[in-house]
């Protein structure tokens, strides 16, 4: 609580990226529905592309987070977690 760890900072940064992506999608759907009808690629419209993109983006950001947290883990979680961790 007292000092913000690097995991927390990373989490918040990734959260901000996703918030931006999701927020743009919702605002676009609400205020520029015409744009969602456009078919930029392969005859598939923006609404479908963006929707799939949001799902893929969530997984990609989650994997990035998991990967960076693991490389940080030895310094970060030394304190209490080591008691429960056999390795």
């Amino acid at each position, binding site marked *: *609580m*007292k000092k913000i760890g690097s*995991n*927390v900072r990373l*989490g*918040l940064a*990734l*959260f901000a990226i*996703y918030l931006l992506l*999701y927020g743009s*999608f*919702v*605002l676009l*759907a*609400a*205020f520029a*529905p015409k744009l*969602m*009808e456009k*078919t930029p690629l*392969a*005859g*598939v*419209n923006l*609404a*479908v592309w963006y*929707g*799939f993109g*949001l*799902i*893929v983006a*969530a*997984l990609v*950001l*989650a*994997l990035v*987070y*998991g990967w960076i*947290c*693991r490389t940080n*883990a030895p310094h970060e*979680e030394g304190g*209490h*977690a080591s008691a*429960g*961790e056999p390795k």
Partner: protein
Amino acid sequence: MTHNSSPLAIAVFLLFVAVTLGITFYLGKKARSSAGYFVAHGQIPWFVNGVAFAGDYLSAASFLGICGMIAFYGYDGFLYSIGYLAGWVVALFVVAEPMKRLGKFTFADALNARFQSPGIKRAAGLSTLVVSLFYLIPQMVGAGVLVQPLLGLPHWVGVVIVGAVVITIVVTAGMVSTTWVQFIKGALLVLFSAILTVMILARGFEASPNIPPPQTVVKTAEGNILINGLPKGVGNGQGQIQPVGTISKLPSGIERTGPLGPLEFFSTLQQSEIVLWKKKEIKSADGSTTTVYTPAPTPGSQILQPGASPTFAGIRSEKLFDKLNFLSLMLALFCGTASLPHILIRYYTVKDQAAARKSTIVGIGSIGFFYVLTLYMGLGAMTSGAMDVTNSNMAAPLLARSFNQWLFAIISAIAFTTVLGTVSGLIIAASGAVVHDLMTSFLKFEMSDHGEVRAARIASVVVGAVAVMLGIVFETMNVNYLVGWAFSIAASANLPALVMLLFWPRTTKQGITAAILVGMFSSLAWILLSADTFKDVYGLPADSALVPFSQPGIVTIPLGFATVIVVSLLTRRAGQANA
């Protein structure tokens, strides 16, 4: 819609239930202590827990509700998929690790870690109970819906069967077996949804230029039901609603497409014309109600973009309040996941923060994959002659039936275990809140470990029975829509308190208690006074509603945050004196 049961479907279904119960009893022997009962001793491997997240989260709303909504209206149902998944980002990046670090059994433990305040325990326990109950209603409705076509039994029987099976699972074994049931169900659901999607793509589309005739359902004042003028039934001289769903025109006038690629599926549909069904209800002076379902050929390009359903029609409206209603729902879905009690308790079933993180990532992977498939399954149901115009919740199982009876039996059985998995998680969360948070803080005595487990079992039976009753009352509502309510209440009551506790050092215990109560009651009141509730629950005209739009989130979530800040600032001195 009337349904014949098939012996094969019943056999597969019973096998599933038997296997599920078998696992429960076997594992139940291990859960004697309260740590075993509520959080499976914190010993669940992270991968299993991750798939169990999917099993817990992909409820009847996702499988039946979203697929049904897509089958009826197109893209709009997929907006729910997007919102439900986005919520996991909040859960992983903001909530997962602190929840694991601060709590032991319940969400209230984590909130209360710094303060030891009975007020927080009571408020958080109460909100857990309310959210769980709201979330239980659509699961129970879904259960009834499933049993109808499968076993040919009435809705209420389905609800009672699920209630009985789930109460048995929860009472005998608690979190250990609940987790394994959810793991199996999560894995099967994702696997068979993928198989179904491949089959949809392999079959492709077929055009049938003959547009089917309108269908009517008359409910007379005495309660008799006439289908297209004939009494409801499957025999000679009796009528039943026909399953529908056709493409009237394919691109460049071809009759069938043959197998399609995953992107070709959308580009073909984009240029086709699909027959949707418009519903109109007419009330006559003699007390009878006539519902007419008329076919309405619709361009595919319109089906593949948001705003076609009544729920999201606001997107295409010029009125600001209609747009706010949509923004409000999307905000509630985003904030709701990380505030759902049955999801939060799953952070206590793993051993440490790293495992909590890893299992969330596995959860996001499996849940995200499933949500991509919902668009294929929903549109597949819309175009494959499998739709039931009277009930949007049946799209996925009926789609499976359009392939063959085996698939129908398996998909229905999986959908049924879907309900079982989610309902058992919810009942454990609710009974944990009753015993851990409410009873200990109100009765002011420490129960023995054994006594706690016994009290939790009794609480589970009571919560389960209440859920059964509510499931029967709300029979006709789209299950996904009801889940939207639960998300709104959870996001308004729990998220502001949790986030402020984690990131704002000046938060006080009074601030947290007030935020939970204000968020919960304001969102609940908003829903009860909204146009949707007036129309669908009370049967009153929608214009007479007292709030300007139906979804509360955009007002009540900020209200929750404001409450924490104002009350914490006002009570700051008292808090410091205690510290």
